[in-house]
């Protein structure tokens, strides 16, 4: 079973704030699911190439140039910013 410390560490890696009650429930629920994954150990995958893309499609690469969005789209995106200053996305201080 995952420990309290492990669950809190995963939560921080996942950028999710958790309460003590959530940690306790996640400990048991995540452990049940992780145990379920153990069934895969029985599968013989020696020499098997992992799937990268299921239909065999290859990367489409476009020219590395900025394509201006329509005004309505760029304004629509900007209006979704939780915080903005003169049309730019404002973010909290990264270095304190």
């Amino acid at each position, binding site marked *: 079973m995952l420990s309290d410390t492990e669950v809190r560490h995963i939560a921080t890696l996942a950028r999710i704030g958790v309460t003590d009650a959530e940690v306790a*429930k996640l400990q048991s629920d995540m452990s049940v699911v992780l145990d*379920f994954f153990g069934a895969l150990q029985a599968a013989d995958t020696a020499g098997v190439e*992992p799937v990268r893309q299921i*239909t065999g499609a290859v990367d489409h690469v476009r020219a590395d140039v900025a394509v201006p969005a329509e005004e309505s*789209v760029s304004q*629509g*995106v900007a209006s979704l910013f939780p915080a903005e200053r003169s049309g730019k*996305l404002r973010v909290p*201080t990264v270095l304190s």
Partner: protein
Amino acid sequence: MSLIRALHQQLIDRTTTSVALTQAALDSMVKNESNGAYLTTLAESALAAARAIDARYDAGEDLPLLSGIPGALKDNMCMAGVRTTAASKMLDNYIAPYNAGVVDRLAAAGAVIVGKTNMDEFAMGSSTENSAYQKTKNPINPEYVPGGSSGGSAAAVAQGDIVWSLGSDTGGSIRLPAAFCGLVGVKPTYGRVSRAGLIAMASSLDQIGPFATCVEDAAIVLNAIIGTDPKDATTVDAPTPDFTTEFNTDLTGIRVGVPTEYFAEGLPADVRAVNEEAIEHLRKLGATITPVSLPNSRYALPVYYILQPAEVSSNLARMDGIRYGMSIDDQKADRPVGSSPLLERYLDSRHYGLGAEVKKRIMLGTYTLSSGYYDAYYAKAQKVRALIRRDFERAFESVDVIYAPSAPDTAWKFGEKSVDPLAMYLADIYTVTANLTGIPAMSQPIGTVVRSGDTLPLGGQLLAKWWDESTMLRVGHALEQSLKAV
């Protein structure tokens, strides 16, 4: 004649109008409001679209089959200017700035969109009980779940508001609700339909597809939405035939494979009997029935529940309270050592914005992708996925389609599978293989069984080779006609 064809004919004859059909749908939505199928109703824009289409019918224009016929979209597909929540509080105020690829295609086909439907939050669930907003009741019997995650789209059609809708299917999220609500639901080949503007859940598995009351209508909707899109690099330039042209009820020469493993255990006797009857219908229609073996399908669920949360953890990283979405920093939660204002905003926004199942899957994915565990989980799962694909490639050397149950049992009552963390995942046992391999699959009604004194529908599944929706739909249509004739 299918419902869509009949309505289209009435629109051409002008014995009805798109405005009348749209108003009837909107009235029906109000009447059925207590079922909780919709998160957003689009009365004004739908009626405006209907009026525009009516003018074109009036002018005698030759319009596509779907023109003027109302339908609905799962609330994870973006429509410009319309609130799109994916049933999450995180996106409570999200107004889509652009249209999803399928929305543009539907608009080009003249379809009218009357609403955005309820779903499991970010499509994570098999019952629609994980919506952050409301429960959706199964119109067949309101004590039961409609299936998920596209439960609202299924209920909307099953309760008769509309004759078609779109859902998305990552591990069975179209086929399971179709089975539970007595509808046809299609998951096309991976790469058939653009996912641009679909709020991503697990990108190597997600695919958009239709719900309808019959196979032909599902095929008509599919015709309207398939094709490549430069905004979705996974779409493939495959031939796009009219899926309805090959319909006939003679299946002579069609080889149907029945996976022995899928009928071996875990299937209740009455469910097995209804499925075997459906297979018997296929035989009587002229198809050859052959047992096939898909031995690695036993690993499909663990593979799916490793890969999907891994992709979820990556795709949902953007739901961070910075770029958009719920943004909170209330200083209440415990702080990890060395946290910054930025990290604190991430932690709080995701704490309040995301539901329990979503958090659990993000964390499972974070764990399996983390240093030291990647090879044991993610890399192993991608290798077993290759084995599962190989099983299907081999099976399709000797058969044209595969028949399987859609689910191990019927819909369940609310709350029945919410305690044990694995119980609901097991409902996806017959559906996840099509997503893992990318092949097309559909569920259609095959009969009913009785649970707790209630008669509930069962779905049967047809799976076909990559890009061969034509044969799958043709066999499904023949089976439907044969079952109807009984």
